[in-house]
């Protein structure tokens, strides 16, 4: 099969990525065609070539001054060759034709048999645009980035005189990718990502120390922080959390009803069911959710989606890292398991289609099924009504991280702000505690779902097999009838 003809369609993303990744080093589109052709000379089911450039910048304020700034450039190409269940993968951070050819040779070694050399001619695809194709790093002068952080520091200190330490950071990422696949995709994405974080330490008159943390961000530029109240809100939130924690008493231990607040507590969904529904674990039948499509895994109240198409969200993608458009996929509908999340490899092996969840940390890692923004749709209850329904339990509106054992289904997530509920009322704040449950049945214990769906502020990072990707979560307030709370007071 011949290499493709001249590109006719055009898009912003493609022109930007082509200039950034190919023109700057004198590579032609025909060089990528040659890679695909050479790969498909072996008996492969699929191959792809993934160019990526990532500019990353972060500024840090400490002791009231921005004393540190870091800038990094990472650029390279990943070559993947798939034969049956086998994957050959090689990458290079040198982008000359010789290095490209070496990587192609190394990747295709996975298949020894000669192939027919057949592949689909790639045609350039225009893609959906759910965030702007911009470089956030140049959208704001460096002096203004520094000013933004020193302002943040001043705001935090002005709110409460118990603040003794403030560390804030402003991060921008400008990522461009260009993908060509043996199944005929040629396209690009330009992915801006920004984030503002602050952590504060407060000391009370008894010398007790506590910290508070807040952040926000998304796919856009720094105007997210300059033109809005977000920076002030982040400052206030961090101080509020530290102040609450200064009053916290020891957490209870044991099984009890738990009410989760809206937004970031949706990490529950990410850990308890999200990972277990990723296609690779289900193809290999190592997930507690394997072969359970069509079965009830949650109460009627629960409908959960993974949605990569939310405008500007941290976990959103125009296309995934295999060129599949990101989509809104229903995972659980009214309690019934509807779908797993797939990349191309696992979809092909399970006779289905990719759901647009093929993601990779960078060119240096092969893609695998990953979440985007995972959240539960709103229900009918008022949040106050849900708290009032609990006689004795806890209310947890903020969390740190979480983790799951895919195979046994056991998952944890750790509350960073929580309160006792006594006779339907929030009483004392309690120290952060780990919550542990069983993924396949925790959602069957959800008896009330609130009407107040919120998404997280945009700070999530998900790790799997040593690869980190930005993600989002969300949920309305919800009640779980029984969950184990890892406090110290029995």
């Amino acid at each position, binding site marked *: 099969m011949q290499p493709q003809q001249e590109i006719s369609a055009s898009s912003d993303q493609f022109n930007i990525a082509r200039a950034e990744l190919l023109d700057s080093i004198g590579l032609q589109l025909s060089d990528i065609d040659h890679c695909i052709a050479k790969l498909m000379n072996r008996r492969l089911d699929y191959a792809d070539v993934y160019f990526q450039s990532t500019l990353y910048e972060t500024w840090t304020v400490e002791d009231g001054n*921005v*004393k540190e700034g870091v800038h*990094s450039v990472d650029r390279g190409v990943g070559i993947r060759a798939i034969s049956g269940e086998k*994957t050959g993968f090689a990458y290079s951070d040198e982008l000359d034709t010789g290095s490209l050819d070496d990587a192609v040779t190394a990747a295709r070694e996975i298949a020894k048999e000669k192939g027919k050399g057949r592949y689909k001619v790639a045609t350039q695809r225009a893609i959906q645009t759910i965030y702007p194709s911009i470089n956030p790093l140049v959208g704001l002068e460096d002096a203004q980035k520094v000013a933004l952080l020193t302002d943040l520091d001043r705001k935090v200190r002005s709110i409460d005189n118990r603040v003794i330490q403030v560390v804030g950071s402003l991060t921008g990422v400008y990522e461009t990718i260009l993908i060509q696949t043996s199944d005929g995709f040629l396209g690009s994405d330009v992915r801006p990502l920004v984030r503002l974080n602050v952590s504060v330490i407060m000391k009370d008159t008894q010398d007790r120390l506590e910290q508070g943390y807040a952040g926000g961000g998304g796919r856009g530029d720094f105007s997210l922080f300059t033109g809005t109240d977000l920076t002030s809100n982040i400052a206030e939130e961090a101080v509020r959390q530290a102040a609450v924690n200064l009053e916290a008493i020891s957490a209870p231990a044991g099984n009890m009803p738990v009410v989760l607040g809206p937004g970031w507590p949706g990490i529950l969904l990410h850990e308890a069911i999200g990972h277990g529904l990723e296609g690779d674990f289900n193809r290999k039948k190592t997930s507690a959710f394997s072969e359970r499509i069509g079965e009830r895994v949650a109460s009627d109240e629960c409908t959960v989606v993974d949605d990569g198409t939310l405008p500007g969200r941290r976990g959103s993608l125009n296309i995934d890292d295999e060129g599949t458009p990101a989509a809104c996929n229903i995972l659980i509908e009214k309690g019934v398991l509807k779908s797993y999340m797939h990349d191309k490899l696992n979809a092909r092996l399970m006779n289905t289609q990719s759901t647009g969840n093929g993601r990779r940390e960078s060119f240096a890692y092969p893609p695998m099924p990953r979440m985007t923004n995972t959240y539960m749709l709103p229900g009918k209850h008022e949040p106050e009504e849900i708290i009032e329904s609990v006689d004795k339990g806890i209310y947890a509106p903020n969390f740190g991280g979480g*983790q799951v054992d895919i195979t046994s289904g056991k998952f944890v997530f750790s509350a960073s702000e929580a309160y006792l509920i006594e006779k339907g009322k929030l009483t004392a704040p309690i*120290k952060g505690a780990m919550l542990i449950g069983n993924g396949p049945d925790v959602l069957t214990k959800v008896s009330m779902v609130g009407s107040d769906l919120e998404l997280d502020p945009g700070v999530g990072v998900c790790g799997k097999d040593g690869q980190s990707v930005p993600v989002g979560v969300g949920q309305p307030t919800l009640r779980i009838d029984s969950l*184990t709370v890892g*406090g110290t007071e029995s």
Partner: protein
Amino acid sequence: MDIEQALHSLRLRALEAIEYAHKLGIEQAEVGVSYDEGLATSVRLGELESVERQRDHSFAVTVYDKGHKGSASTSEFSKAAIEKTISKAISIASFTAEDRFSGLLGPEFMAKNPRDLFLYHPWDIGVEQAEIIALRAEKAAQDIDPRIKNSEGASVSTGCGVRVYANSHGFCEGYPTSSHSVTCGAVAEQNQSLERDYWYTAARDPKELEEPEKVGADAASRALRRLDAKQISTCNVPVVFPAELARSLFGHLIAAITGTSQYRKASFLLDAKGTQIFPEFIEVIEDPLIPKAMGSAPFDNEGAATSQRKLIEQGVLTGYVLSSYSAKRLGLKTTANAGGIHNLIVKPNAGSLSSILKKRTELFLVGELLGQGVNTVTGDYSRGAAGFWVQDGQVSFPVNEVTIAGNLSEIFKGIRAVGSDKDKRGNIHCGSLLVEGLTVAGK
């Protein structure tokens, strides 16, 4: 990889970079340059599953321009890319605030004629040999018991790298390292319940790796012993952390005594130097110079010469974990820990894990820890766990879906025994620990 050639070329790049920074009027600059190569081969259910080849370049520079600091890095090694990176660092330094504590570490601290610690032992294997080793591990797991019905596969990975650090004092030193591992993950099934576990061996010298059959068999027996686990009722009970998990507690210690958490006042062990934080029998040293060890380094990320030192003596904290910056902030001298700790060694006062299990009539043996749940500022500790109920030194049944919680200050003081079964796969070498004062939460 031709190591001498690679070292030579990284040195040249580092020296050129320092010279270029000086030419642009920068008084103090430091550069870290590295090159790594690796091969990871994995198999699953008797078949080759993936082959990944890696090759990474990294160039990182920090400039100090009259007390203003700027840093930048790139994966591109061309002269133009490196010069652009240095200029970017200088540009950043023009926006950062002056900091009287920043700057290069004094020349008197630089390592002189750094010692060869024998950290480079290439493993000359190709994909086919790696595949055979991985298959041996997986087969050993599959053959051990019919209840091992599935596999997370086995993998063999080998990597070598060279890194060079240079700065404006004329320091320019580097050394090669290698790291190899064999990992196996097994899935056990019984009464429709699934459990997985894994085991791995890791060493700088491939000759020191465990046999693949042992890795596979350990992964399988670890998965098997978890089958039919149940939740227990909330209780206060002695807890044993086996060596592979015990080291995490000393990781939390390090996090609390690094200079950064001290000067930021973000530590439950704030200003704790000189105070008793462990029982008297606890002795901990840092030994960066152990030949072939995973955490060994002749100098740290700022060129400071490393040396052996005591960190906990008769339970008393004798120092912090400092870089040049955090040391200056605290009015102290660096402890050559820029980049982290180098081989922390906890001295044992007891024998094997099985002898520790006999020390109490009933206890909870941790098998796995889930989630973070550790607050370095307050010391509050609450983590998810699975494990085993142990009665009179014998495992009576597996336990899951519990948490263990306490405060690290009390957990440290509650250590009753340190085993001699040190896990040396990482940079913290600690045997199994018996700890009192934790709450296990369950039903």
